[in-house]
């Protein structure tokens, strides 16, 4: 929750609208209050702590893991948990704990990467549709409707078959398909925001459409987007695991929790322990992101508090 330097810098090019920026962007005081409300939500803090831990694991994976994630060891095929291998070994003798830790990288990259792409596209399209209205809105709204009519997983499976399974494709394909719901929310917010007095004031002061959208409309429409995005990360991690589980997500032999589950299912009769750890890893990560999302919702939108 650090404050970006842009907000406090004077805007030399247009003193009038620069003054308006100051008055109507969420300032440092509001941010501190948000953080204080967030801090009161204990489950959200636990979730945040867990995600910080995951980020550290992901960044330091090559130094802290005792084995190589791709190292095959036929002598240890399907061995259960032991002192040397805390979570046991998989169907070709790879260390499961090592692969779980490396799997955090995939989960975080896909979760955060895909959400960033989706928010960027959704905000741009939603704000454009809501602000300009008329024909622009009609065309963009039908585009949003079309995308929202597709069952997400069916569309993702089809697109992954077309582009081929790889980490980059998973991030891009998920990001480019889930943005429609953000666009719809932003559009609705912007529809009401564009009639507000401060937008009229900015327009009267001679600000361009582009400036009004980026400086006045979008910052004020971001609250619901942040809530939606934080609550969506968990769902996206589950989507990635499902795609990888079906063999159309992250390509083997990269350690992804979904592909690990898929390996586990193939050996469900002989080595059932392979399937346990990846599922728990997915569940805890999704739970942590959902708790953060709940906390953010309470902090950013106190009206919706349950």
């Amino acid at each position, binding site marked *: 929750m650090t404050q970006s330097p842009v907000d406090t810098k004077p805007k030399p090019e247009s003193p009038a609208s620069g003054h308006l920026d100051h008055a109507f962007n969420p300032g440092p005081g509001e941010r501190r209050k948000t953080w204080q409300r967030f801090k009161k939500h204990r489950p959200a803090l636990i979730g945040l702590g867990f995600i910080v831990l995951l980020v550290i694991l992901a960044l330091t994976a090559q130094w802290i893991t005792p084995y190589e994630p791709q190292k095959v060891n036929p002598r240890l095929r399907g061995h259960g948990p032991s002192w040397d291998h805390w979570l046991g070994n998989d169907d070709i003798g790879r260390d499961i704990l090592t692969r779980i830790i490396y799997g955090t990288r995939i989960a975080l990259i896909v979760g955060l990467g895909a959400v960033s792409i989706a928010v960027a596209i959704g905000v741009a399209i939603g704000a454009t549709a809501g602000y300009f209205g008329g024909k622009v809105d009609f065309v963009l709204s039908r585009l949003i409707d079309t995308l929202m009519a597709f069952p997400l997983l*069916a569309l993702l*499976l089809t697109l992954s078959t077309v582009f081929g399974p790889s980490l980059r494709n998973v991030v891009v394909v998920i990001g480019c398909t889930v943005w429609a719901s953000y666009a719809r929310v932003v559009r609705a917010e912007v529809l009401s925001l564009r009639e507000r007095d401060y937008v009229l004031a900015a327009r009267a002061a001679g600000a361009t459409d582009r400036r009004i959208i980026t400086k006045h409309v979008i910052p004020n429409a971001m609250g619901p987007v942040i809530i939606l995005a934080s609550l969506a990360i968990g769902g996206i991690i589950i989507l990635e695991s499902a795609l990888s589980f*079906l063999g159309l997500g992250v390509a083997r032999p990269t350690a992804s929790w979904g592909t690990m589950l898929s390996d586990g299912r193939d050996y469900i009769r002989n080595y059932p322990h392979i399937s346990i750890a990846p599922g728990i890893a997915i569940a805890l990560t999704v739970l942590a992101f959902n708790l953060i999302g709940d906390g953010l919702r309470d902090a950013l939108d106190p009206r919706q508090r349950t």
Partner: protein
Amino acid sequence: MAAYLIKRLSQGVLVLFLVSLLTFFVMYFMPGDPARTMVGQARVTEEQLDAIRDKWGLNDPWYERYGDWIGNLVTGDLGTSMMRPGQGIGDMITDAAGMTLQLNVLAYSLALAIALPVGIFAATKRNSFLDYFSTFGSTVGIAVPNYWIGIMAIVLFSVKLGWLPAYGADSWKSYILPVVVLSIEEMATIMRLIRGTTIEVLNQDFVTTARAKGLAQNVVVMRHVVRNALLPVITMIGYRIAFILSGTIVLETVFSWPGLGQLFFDAITNQDLQVVQAIVLLLTTVVVIMNIVTDLTYAVIDPRVRVR
């Protein structure tokens, strides 16, 4: 109202047209050669492959293929499957959709039967053990991927205990695992929602009035609270029904359930483009129709919507 109806219907038709175009183009750019996939390991000459492509219309330009496809669709002809030669796609989809519907109807019934009473009771007894238990349960239930629960259930009840079959849909016993596993996620979502809306309704003035005139707590809850708290739940279920046929792709592959999800996945892996196209179009049509129905229901209930 008529004007609103016409507007929504024409928008729906436009969206369906865009959906069909998008589906077609994704299929069009599908890598690989369906003709070669179809012959499998058999030795064939390039001429024979070309004859197959001709027969399936794979050599025609895109607008002809799209036109043929839509033309056949309108007359109710979905064509025949490539991966299961001789089988009509219409029959395949009808059978599979029936199995998926069975699974979902049973799972939803189970989820509602448990989630509604528990959620409402948890809301009326805030901070009780049941309240904490159901809140915790629904938070966890949403986070755990249901296909993993499916795998764990197979490990426990089929592999270790040997009580229930792990795959297929042969007897009533094979319904138990998929139905229960599918219901867990729905249960979690419904419980969370009904608890939240019940708490909201409990704080409203008319509830206080009902209490003030001396009604017993359970009468207040049954007569005044539940009816109002159910509205958002019905809305949410209506929204989820739109995706009912497509929500079980992964779970169906885990349990080898002969439903639409499994059929879709088989068609994707076997590059049976006709089947994939037909299923996607069916799924999206259901969504578009359900959205229009939901909007119209709102318009009937709330006249302000029509003006927008």
